[in-house]
């Protein structure tokens, strides 16, 4: 096995609203012998990825896009597909780069992007896979893995070889795992299974967390309670981590909206009476709410259920967020009722609630749900707020981490490493918010597999669990492959209305990379010259960062040492105050 063989045919999805850049990047990536799919809209890109997660190895996305913020896309991808994502921008400002890292980007490229930078992107794919292999090796119950495994032939040998080759990109924990590497190279190849977080699985997860109680929840406990064979603690850990990102983002949006509408109630279809929104922003000493007048408002939200009326809008019904940690456990029952009572396992989302810029607001659990009137499967994903100081999640998916403020000491063992992979079963139709207009949106999705085969998707409505993707444009029609329509699998000749001209690809182990691995990546990643290793914490002026909490948690990880954890890369939400970790 030639371990130094270049990964030809690496399947890349490029997302950029700038058509010129899209064309250039496509050409560049082709020249690297990669397989390229381009997309001009983030929403369309998500569709494609949801359609066939295993058909891509890596995603490259611009940061500034009209239909969806690049960071949001990044989150989605990390949460749902767990693919490595590279961000691009003409803006190389440290804060932006930092934000990218926080959100899980494995790299951040500055435009104009150079060929050599693109040539190296395969490293991110391999690194991620290696990480998964190591996780498997280190986990006790790897024997129990019964989940469907995607093979990636020869990967392990290759990737192990890569470890020694890419010293600079080594994660810190690699040093500790050297012995593991040895073992796995001698022993049988462990193939990582991909965990799909179905609605049910996720619900079990939530229930487990609620049952345990926020204060005491830990990945092992959640795992035990869930009692799902093959599920690893790592799965649970990274799941949580990503949720937090979602929640905080949603919360931010919600808060923004609240502020924008000057305290107007959201009126959701049929649920307006039940909403009682008061935004709650803890004003943290280290964070300055720049120009936010409502910094000390209180968001008290009452849980609500979305019914199927909400098919066209993402209804945001904030959950009640208790002020004290203790009350969370008692509220857990309520939230459970909420979630289970909904016909679709339904979820409330905190959309549109404004957020103070620091994103350190109350922790509210946000579950998002789309109820499609057409009886389509609902889209669900849990959102977790950024861990805040005095608040914990109601439908807490994660434990209340020790607070940044001095009153709450760090409680070891509270760290968890949930690796959630949510399978987003979602119909794109009528998804009001994120996918405003799927059909016309796909216009920009072009895919050229070879000069002769250029496929332009003019208009496609995507249905996930369905096997047919129909195009409103007569030229294009996707036929189902393997029961799932796949935009990628079908090569189109402009003259053909459908077809699979290219054999399906082997499923790849994008695999169960549980973690976004943000902090873990920090030290080793020379993002455009920013090397985190040598930067002392005090060097960051946190008060200016929007995503202070996330930055802090990412960086804090370097300091926190929990025996219970297997990786150091878990994101711990320990917002710093005045640059200090803990009391």
């Amino acid at each position, binding site marked *: 096995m030639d371990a130094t063989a270049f990964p030809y045919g690496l399947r890349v999805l490029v997302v950029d609203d700038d058509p*010129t850049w899209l064309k250039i990047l496509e050409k560049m990536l082709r020249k690297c012998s990669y397989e390229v799919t381009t997309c001009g809209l983030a929403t369309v890109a998500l569709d494609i990825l949801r359609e066939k997660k295993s058909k891509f190895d890596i995603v490259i996305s611009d940061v500034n896009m009209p239909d969806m913020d690049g960071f949001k896309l990044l989150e989605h991808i990390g949460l749902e597909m767990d693919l490595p994502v590279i961000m691009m921008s003409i803006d190389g400002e440290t804060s932006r780069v930092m934000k990218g890292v926080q959100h899980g980007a494995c790299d951040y490229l500055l435009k104009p992007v150079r060929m050599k930078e693109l040539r190296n992107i395969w490293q991110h794919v391999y690194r991620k896979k290696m990480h998964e292999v190591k996780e498997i090796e280190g986990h006790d119950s790897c024997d129990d893995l019964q989940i469907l495994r995607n093979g990636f032939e020869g990967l392990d040998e290759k990737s192990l070889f890569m470890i020694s080759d890419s010293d600079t990109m080594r994660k810190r924990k690699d040093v500790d795992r050297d012995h593991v590497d040895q073992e796995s190279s001698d022993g049988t190849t462990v193939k990582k299974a991909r965990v799909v977080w179905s609605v049910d699985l996720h619900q079990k997860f939530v229930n487990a967390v609620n049952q345990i109680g926020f204060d005491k929840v830990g990945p092992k406990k959640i795992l035990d309670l869930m009692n799902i064979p093959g599920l690893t603690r790592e799965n649970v850990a990274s799941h949580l981590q990503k949720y937090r990102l979602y929640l905080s983002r949603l919360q931010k949006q919600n808060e923004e909206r609240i502020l924008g509408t000057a305290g107007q109630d959201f009126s959701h279809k049929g649920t307006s009476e039940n909403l009682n929104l008061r935004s709650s922003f803890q004003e943290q000493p280290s964070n300055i709410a720049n120009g936010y007048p409502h910094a000390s408002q209180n968001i008290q939200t009452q849980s609500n259920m979305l019914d199927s009326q909400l098919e066209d809008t993402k209804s945001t019904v904030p959950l009640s967020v208790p002020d004290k940690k203790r009350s969370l456990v008692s509220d857990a029952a309520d939230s459970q009722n909420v979630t289970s009572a909904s016909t679709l396992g339904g979820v409330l989302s905190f959309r549109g609630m404004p957020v103070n810029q620091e994103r350190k607001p109350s922790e509210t659990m946000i579950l998002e749900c789309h109820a499609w009137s057409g009886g389509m499967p609902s889209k669900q994903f849990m959102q977790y707020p950024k861990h805040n100081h005095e608040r914990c999640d109601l439908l807490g998916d994660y434990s209340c981490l020790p607070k940044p403020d001095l009153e709450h000491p760090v409680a070891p063992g509270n760290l968890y490493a949930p690796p959630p992979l949510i399978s987003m079963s979602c119909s794109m139709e009528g998804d009001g918010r994120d996918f405003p207009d799927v059909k016309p949106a796909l216009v920009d999705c072009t895919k050229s597999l070879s000069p002769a085969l250029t496929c332009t998707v003019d208009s496609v409505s995507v249905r996930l669990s369905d096997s047919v993707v129909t195009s409103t444009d007569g030229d294009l029609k996707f036929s189902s492959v393997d029961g799932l329509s796949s935009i990628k699998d079908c090569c189109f000749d402009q003259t053909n209305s459908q077809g699979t001209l290219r054999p399906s690809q082997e499923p790849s182990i994008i695999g169960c990379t549980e973690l976004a691995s943000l902090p873990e990546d920090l030290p080793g990643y020379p993002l455009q010259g920013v090397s985190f290793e040598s930067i002392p914490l005090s060097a960051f002026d946190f008060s200016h960062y929007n995503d202070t909490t996330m930055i802090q948690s990412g960086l804090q990880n370097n300091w926190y040492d929990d025996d219970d954890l297997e990786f150091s890369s878990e994101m711990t939400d320990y917002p710093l105050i005045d640059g200090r970790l803990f009391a």
Partner: protein
Amino acid sequence: MVFMQGFLDEQFNQLEELQDESSPNFVEEVVDLFFKDSSRLLTNIEQAIDKYPQDFYRLDSLVHQFKGSGSSIGALRVKNECSVFKAHCNDRSLEGCRRSFQKIKREHATLKQKLESYFQLLRQVGPREYAVCSRK
């Protein structure tokens, strides 16, 4: 490409290096695409400037987009003027923005003219000479 000096940066060279047998007109195609798209962006900016009350955040965002686009072909002067524009946005100087915008438009138009001449020249000169020509 002496007469293009100062107008285009290294990125343009990169584009030329990307051009090959499978895409023999790559550079020109990219340039065409750029001018088509950037004209649209310019219109957006123009409309946004005249809006009242002025939303500098949005204006900055539009120019940022335009700047990013300009970076794709290495439009150096255009990019630089975008930076000036963004600085005016930051200072919330509408007058500064207006002035800067006029400059951007001029630079954009000039670049377009020059590139048109450039490609015309290449066509006249022929493919082999192009390889020599393009090495500034």
